[in-house]
């Protein structure tokens, strides 16, 4: 797998409480996965400001260099990344699934895949093998489940919290690594002319509203113990018959694999 050409795209994150710049959690996982696949051959690309100190946290994971496509703040990173990737021999591009700053819509991997015409794997957890231009990959699903997919190279994969946790960033390599700037044409993001960013408002908690008619009924609904209602009861049946009934429900629900 060493000859696989892997690129990881990274952004600058923000700490969830203090808001201080840091390496983005999911992007760091993408770098981690890339390092496991390609070692030092991994290319890491960021579109933004080369002077951003937070980028050094990625170098601290053991990267010799990081390519920065220079963009003014709040610009649209997509055109620069498309151009860079289209002109590179990349076979696998790893991204996080959602940025921690700005809009954070999670659209970037989808738009990149659409522009490049590559397939996109969402929620990559691991790459099992790469053979004959096809990769066997594991996809992380909700509830801790995994799914195996076969994908043709080249492809794009986004990484979420199901991927292996990122290694720590060390201070020495972070200082020694190089941030290499590349010129790229700036692109304006039209969204911010119509939309406004404001501090997040607390979402109202939904109350369980009982729309029963009378006060007595609402009182009863509020104090009632949970009852399934309409449940089926089997009494006085043999264990085999009971097991059969339970088995059928499990099979119906699709939880038996």
């Amino acid at each position, binding site marked *: 797998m060493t000859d696989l050409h892997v690129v990881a795209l990274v952004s600058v994150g*923000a700490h969830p409480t203090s808001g201080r710049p840091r390496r983005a959690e999911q992007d760091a996982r993408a770098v981690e996965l890339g390092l496991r696949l390609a070692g030092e051959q991994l290319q890491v690309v960021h579109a933004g400001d080369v002077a951003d100190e937070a980028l050094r946290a990625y170098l601290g994971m053991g990267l010799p260099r990081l390519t920065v496509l220079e963009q003014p703040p709040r610009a649209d990173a997509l055109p620069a990344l498309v151009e860079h990737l289209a002109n590179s021999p990349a076979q696998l591009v790893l991204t996080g699934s959602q940025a921690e700053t700005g809009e954070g819509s*999670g659209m970037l991997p989808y738009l990149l895949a659409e522009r490049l015409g590559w397939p996109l794997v969402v929620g990559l957890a691991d790459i099992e093998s790469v053979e004959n231009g096809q990769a*066997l990959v594991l996809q992380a699903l909700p509830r801790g489940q995994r799914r195996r997919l076969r994908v043709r190279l080249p492809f794009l994969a986004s990484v979420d919290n199901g991927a292996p946790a990122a290694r720590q960033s060390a201070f020495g390599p972070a200082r020694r690594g190089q941030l290499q700037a590349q010129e790229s044409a700036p692109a304006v993001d039209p969204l911010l002319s119509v939309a406004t960013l*404001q501090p997040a408002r607390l979402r109202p908690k939904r109350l369980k509203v009982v729309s029963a008619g009378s006060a007595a009924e609402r009182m009863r609904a509020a104090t009632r113990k949970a009852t399934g209602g309409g449940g089926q009861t089997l009494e006085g049946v043999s264990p085999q018959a009971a097991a059969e009934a339970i*088995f059928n429900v499990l099979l119906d629900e699709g939880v038996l694999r």
Partner: protein
Amino acid sequence: MSDIIRRDPRAEWIARNRLHPLHAAMQKSDTRWMGPNGLIRKNPHALAAGFVGPSGLKRIDRSGAEQGGGQKRSAPETAVRLPLHLVEQPSHLVAVVPDMVGGRLGSHDRDVFGLARQLAGATGAVLAVVFGQLREDAFDTAGADRLLILEGDAYDGYCPEQRLLALRAVESGFAPRHWLLPDSRSGGGELGRRLAASLGERPATRVWQMRDGFCSSRAGAGREDLVQPTPRLVLASAECAEPVSDTRHEARQVELPAPVISHLPRMEDLGAVAVDPSQIPLAEAEFILSGGNGITDWNLFHRAAAILGATEGASRVAVDDGHMPRARQVGATGTWVTARVYLAVGISGAIQHLQGIGACEKVIAVNLDPGCDMLKRADLAVVGDSAAILQALIERVAAHRQGGRRDAA
């Protein structure tokens, strides 16, 4: 409904008003009647019972013209049938693609339908687009005016590219004014973004509120909100709107005008991978086998969990007695679980335990005591001995597994 006695002021007023057309119907007939011998009979007790007058005082009217209101007004016993909201010629369509986890509408899906109804208004229609096999018949109360079912082998398993083609066919066939999808990890978030990239629409994601043509969505890591005019494509988070609760809708089936083209998938689904269920955090597990004080043979319980592929849970008593680790405790002081299927064996269903399984969809309970609360909560309740039933279940599943292997060979 209730047996609370209620006065009906209108009936009383009609009974007092001799000119009212319904006056006769409101008169009590059984205080004076013609006896078998032609004599007029009176019921003095009924007269003395009197009636409550308009000022709230009891009145006795011996003139024989006792006035209405004596009848008890009771609410009709019939189940509430919600009014039907019909849209014959919709001015516009709002397409909703629910997740349908396990083939059913989840609460997130219903919230999105609620939001779609807001966008559809009185003249528009909500079009539900669902894939594959259905186990849901509540599209009418969820708020779908039109229902498009896309069935076929092509939509089985994980096939986002094929589904995207189908949604593109819906786009060209119906041209909905809005697209709404749940922004969830169980499919909607991914499909919606693929659709957005393919249509070239910039979506609003993680939308949690929509008001006056503007929608608010969480931005970044959740520290900021992005407020923008509602775009065509909206990916909404859970509880983005109240689900439809006071109308019924038609859920009329529609067909795609043109068949969906299919092409060679670039991604192939090779199926689910066996994950060690004991590695899955209890709060996230999809299928939990939980044991309580009614388990006599814990080795049998562990074997059952292994063969079922279920994550193990326990009641507090089982944990306190040292049969299970503390991290496996389900309930108020343990873990609040979200399993889709919860199989409780030998658990009585104390309120602290039931609180912890409030979010479970299907509960199956096995217990010796037919009157216990767990059986009342359960969708399938089995009265019987835990050991015998677990043993039978192990055998049944083993037979199923072997049968499956023979079929595959």
